[in-house]
C-alpha cells in the first residue's frame, strides 16, 4: 500500500470483539483510511458506530482482527522497539480524561508519561512546563496545585497536557468538549487550532458535535455500523444533509438554515461553515435577487 505523506493508514481494518463467544460483535469492517500529515480529520457517527474502536487502533491499544494499521510507514502489528516507538507518536486523549488524573499535583500528573520514558529529571521538567503552557496553564501557578481543585475545563486541559508531554505527532481527541460549558469548549477548540499551526500536529477529532467539526476540521469521516459511510472535505460532507440525517447525524445549525433557504427558492451555497460566512452568503443572494431587503436601500 502506498502511504505517501500518510501519517496513519488503515487497510481492510476489521475488529471483532469477543470473537467466538455468544457476545461476538463486529465493531469495524473493512475500513480503509489514510490520515495525512498536518490534516485535521473529524470522525463522526452514532454511538456504537465504531469510532472509539477505530482510533484505539492508531496507537496499538487494540490489534486488528483482520487488516492492518501503519503509522509513519511502520506496520503496527509487529513487536520490538521500532513498533513501540512508533506507537508513541500517536497520543490518545480519551473521553472525560480528567477522570484519570490521579497524582497529588498537576506537575506530577503531567510528568507521569515523560518519566516513564526514562528521561532525565531536567528534561521531564522542561516538557511538563512546556506542555502546561501549550494548554494555557501557567506552570508556576498551576504546577503545585491539586488537580481536584481545578475547574472541569482546566482539569481536562491538564489531562491533555499529559498526552502532549509525550510529544506525539498525531493527537487523537475523543469528544474533547463533551460536558464543558461554552467557554471551556471555546478554549479547547482554540488551543487545538493553535497546536496545529504551531506544533504542526496532525489532529483526529472524534465528536458528536457537528458544530465543532465544522469549525475545526478539513475533512470528515462518517462511520456507520463499523464501515466508512462517507469520507469527504467538510464542506462537501455537510452539504449532504439528507445522507447524514439518514444515519442519525445532524448538520450544523447554520447549514440547516441555508438548506431551508435553498429549499424555499433562495439560491444560496449550503457549504458555509461559520456564522460569518453564512451571513455574507445570504446577503449576497439577497442583493442579487432584489432591492427591498435592506433598510439602507428602502
Amino acid at each position: 500500500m502506498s502511504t505517501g505523506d500518510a501519517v496513519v493508514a488503515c487497510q481492510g481494518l476489521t475488529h471483532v470483539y469477543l470473537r467466538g463467544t455468544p457476545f461476538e460483535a463486529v465493531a469495524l469492517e473493512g475500513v480503509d483510511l489514510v490520515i495525512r500529515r498536518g490534516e485535521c480529520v473529524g470522525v463522526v457517527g452514532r454511538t456504537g458506530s465504531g469510532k472509539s474502536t477505530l482510533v484505539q487502533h492508531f496507537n496499538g491499544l487494540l490489534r486488528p482482527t483482520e487488516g492492518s494499521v501503519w503509522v509513519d510507514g511502520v506496520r503496527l502489528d509487529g513487536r520490538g522497539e521500532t513498533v513501540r516507538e512508533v506507537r508513541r507518536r500517536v497520543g490518545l486523549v480519551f473521553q472525560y480524561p480528567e477522570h484519570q488524573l490521579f497524582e497529588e499535583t498537576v506537575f506530577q500528573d503531567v510528568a507521569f508519561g515523560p518519566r516513564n520514558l526514562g528521561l532525565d529529571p531536567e528534561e521531564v521538567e522542561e516538557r511538563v512546563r512546556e506542555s502546561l503552557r501549550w494548554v494555557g496553564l501557567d506552570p508556576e501557578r498551576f504546577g503545585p496545585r491539586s488537580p481536584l481543585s481545578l475547574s472541569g475545563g482546566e482539569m481536562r486541559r491538564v489531562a491533555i497536557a499529559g498526552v502532549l508531554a509525550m510529544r506525539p505527532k498525531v493527537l487523537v481527541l475523543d469528544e474533547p468538549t463533551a460536558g464543558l460549558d461554552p467557554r471551556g469548549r471555546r478554549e479547547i477548540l482554540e488551543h487545538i487550532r493553535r497546536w496545529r499551526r504551531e506544533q504542526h500536529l496532525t489532529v483526529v477529532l472524534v465528536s458528536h458535535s457537528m458544530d465543532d467539526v465544522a469549525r475545526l476540521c478539513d475533512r470528515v469521516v462518517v462511520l456507520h455500523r463499523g464501515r466508512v459511510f462517507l469520507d469527504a472535505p467538510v464542506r462537501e460532507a455537510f452539504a449532504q444533509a439528507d445522507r447524514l440525517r439518514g444515519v442519525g447525524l445532524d448538520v450544523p445549525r447554520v447549514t440547516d438554515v441555508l438548506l431551508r433557504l435553498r429549499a424555499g427558492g433562495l439560491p444560496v451555497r449550503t457549504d458555509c461553515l461559520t456564522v460569518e460566512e453564512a451571513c455574507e452568503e445570504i446577503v449576497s443572494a439577497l442583493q442579487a435577487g432584489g432591492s427591498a431587503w435592506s433598510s439602507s436601500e428602502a
Partner: protein
Amino acid sequence: MSEPTALIEVDHLTHVYHAGTPHEVRAVWDVSLTIRPGEFVALVGGNGSGKSTLAKHLNALLLPTDGRVVVDGLDTRDPHALWEIRRRVGMVFQNPDNQIVATVVEEDVAFGPENLGLPPEEISGRVEEALRAVGMLEYRLREPHLLSGGQKQRVAIAGVLAMRPRCIVFDEATTMLDPEGRREVLDTAHRLRDQEGIAVVHITHSMEEAAEADRVVALHAGRVVLDGPPREVFREVRRLREVQLDLPEVARLHACLVRRGVKLGAQALHPAELADQILRLRRAVV
C-alpha cells in the same frame, strides 16, 4: 410567599460546601425561584455556576445551609417528608450507564414502585404505562446494557415516571448522548410536559436545547443572573457574554444579518424561524 400555583418554591437558598473549613465553597447564594406545575425550565450556567447544586436541592439530595426549599407544600428539611419529596421530584443523571440497576428493562422500571410497597398488579400497570410513555414498551424484556445511550436514558426516565412524579430534573442528561439520543430524550421530556403536565427542569450547556424551553434560568457564581422566556433571555447579549454563555448559533446569524442591514423581524432562535423571516422578505419583493 407560596402562591397556590407554585410546585417548587426555592426561598433565599444558600448552600456552602465544607462550611467552616479552609475549603469552604459558596456554591449557591441567596437564590429565590418558583417552579410552576407543567413548566419546562432550562437551567444554564458555566461549570461551577451552582446549577447542579441547586438542582440537587429540588428533591432533597442536598439540604440548604440557609433558606428553604418547599416541594408541593413539603419542606425538604423535614426528614419525614423525604420519601414523599423524592417520589414527587425525580432525577435523571448524566451517565446512562450508572443509573440502571436491574438486568431486565421492566424490572429496572419496577424498582421504585416495588419500594413503595404497591400491590403487584398496580406495579405492572405502572411499569407498562411508564414504558409506553417513553416509547420503550417493546423493549420491556431486553437487557439494558444492549440498549443505546438514548434508550437507556429513556428507561431511566420511565423508572422515574413509574413513581408518578410532578417534576423531573434532567441533570445534564443529554450531555453524553449522540445527536439522535439527545433528540429522543428531549422529545420525551417535551411530550411528558405536554401530555402529563409534568414540570421539567433541564440542566444543559447547550443553548440550542435551552431555546426550546418555556423559561431559561441562568446562574453565575451561585446567583440567578437571568430568568425569563428564551426570547427575553437571549436578547441580553452582553449580559450573557459576561457570564460566559453563548447565543444559539441561529441567533448569532440573525444578529449578523441585522448588522448588515437586512430588515428582519425579532430575534430568531430556531433554523425554521430564521429561514421563514428571510424568505418572507424575498416574497415581499416579488
